């Protein structure tokens, strides 16, 4: 990872991820017609990750909402039939931004506890692997050696842990692990009455 990229990724983790749950809730509430919320979120991260300079962003939370809104609007424009109200709901973004995010005033200590709590809540082997990698800084290969398991198992557990943590951080239901469980997004009717 280049230094610039590392900085953006750290910023995403610190300033953006904590607001994803709020953005998701707002997306669901305001315009289900815009398509799958997961799609919008991924597309939004794609734009945020392309940033080369984040220093000018004073309000990451607001910036995240704006970016998600612009992605959603674009998807609505692409769709053939759209409720007029949908667009006006999205335009009413300011409402969602009003409260200056109580969660931003969380102390460093609570954030530390939260991150540790997320790791602690993982299933046993998964948790152990995450702790070794993330707290103790042991490389994956060495973890496999110490636990006497294959690298593939370490990889699978780490993937499982990362997905569970992402889900918990963004307050979604834990992923089922199976691919293709979620409904496909295209072909869904965007016409709503």
């Amino acid at each position, binding site marked *: 990872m280049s230094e610039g990229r*590392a900085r953006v*990724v*750290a*910023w*995403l*983790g*610190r300033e*953006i*991820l904590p607001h994803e749950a709020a953005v998701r809730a707002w997306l669901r509430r305001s315009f289900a017609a815009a398509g*799958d919320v*997961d*799609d919008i*979120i*991924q*597309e939004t*991260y*794609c*734009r*945020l*990750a392309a940033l080369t300079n984040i*220093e000018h962003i004073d309000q990451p939370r607001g910036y995240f909402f704006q970016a998600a809104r612009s992605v959603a609007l674009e998807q609505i424009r692409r769709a053939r039939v759209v409720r007029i109200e949908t667009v006006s709901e999205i335009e009413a973004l300011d409402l969602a931004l009003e409260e200056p995010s109580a969660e*931003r*005033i969380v*102390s*460093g*200590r609570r*954030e*530390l506890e939260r*991150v540790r709590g*997320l*790791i602690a809540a993982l299933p046993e082997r998964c948790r152990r692997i*995450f*702790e070794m*990698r*993330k*707290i*103790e*800084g*042991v*490389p*994956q*290969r060495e973890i496999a050696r110490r636990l006497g398991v294959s*690298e593939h198992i370490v*990889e699978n557990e*780490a*993937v499982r842990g*990362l*997905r569970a*943590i*992402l889900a918990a*951080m963004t307050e979604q239901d834990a*992923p089922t*692990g199976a*691919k*293709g469980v*979620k*409904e*496909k*997004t*295209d072909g869904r009717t965007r016409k709503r009455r």
Partner: protein
Amino acid sequence: MVERESAADIEADAARWVVRVDRDGGAVRSELDVWLAGDRRRVGAFARAEAAWTHMDRASVLPIEDAPAKVATPPPRRRGVIAGFGALAAGLVAAVVAPRLLARRYGTALGEIRRVPMDDGSVAAINTSSELEVSMQPRLRAVKLERGEAWFAVAKDPARPFVVESGPVRVRAVGTAFSVRKREGGSDVLVTEGVVEVWTQDSGAPPRRVAAGQSVFADNDAGVLTPPKAEADLTRQLAWRDGQIVLDGQTLAEAAAEFNRYNDHKIQIADARLADQRFVGWFRTNDPEGFAEAAAMTFNGKVSQSGDAIVLRGG
């Protein structure tokens, strides 16, 4: 219509890519690029998963945005980083045999931390750049702290009090555990178990009792001027015994000063605004670079080397 890849599939694949890059590094880069090029959402999902993965590193490091919280529980230890004292002590025993010697000197170099068992069953942990002399007499166990800092776990022996001399400051214990740090104008005393008495010779002030969980500063001239202070985070302050520096709401300036006690490579904070930022983290005393990197990452700063100095400035 072509089946579109679901967001859930992309999310699962992205997490796997992050873990593979973590393991194999650049070796999988071209393969990853091919995957990323397939769909913009993949780029987003990968960045998102990478952000969460990196964010987990904060399990050991993170900034504090408000005033330092009162510490209710000691922070969990960073495990597996530092080898236990057992091995260290075992290595030292060989060098420290010669029983029946009345006075014995112990010293540590910059960055060195030693744990030394004494003849009476007490143990001393000696911090960086310190020197002390231990003299086991029939009615007195006398320790002279010439410079630096040491923590003592004193074996119980009512007939032979254990007295630490730090300049004119005296700390007296029977069976207890405490640390003494010799500073410019006086000494800090931290008590982890039992009770000690602290006074300054010729100050005229009576000895002050300091109990477990308390600390006191004894001035070289005036003695103990303020009542003992309750310390909620003694474990943190004594983390050096395990070769660690634990930060819990200290400013970067304070943290840098702490690291500079242990290392030739001194940390300089070239930016006053940065110096006041507060920080939580677990570090090894001999890893000032790691600390500087973590601080720079957290506060959007930059680290550069200038001769022997590690310079930290705002971004």
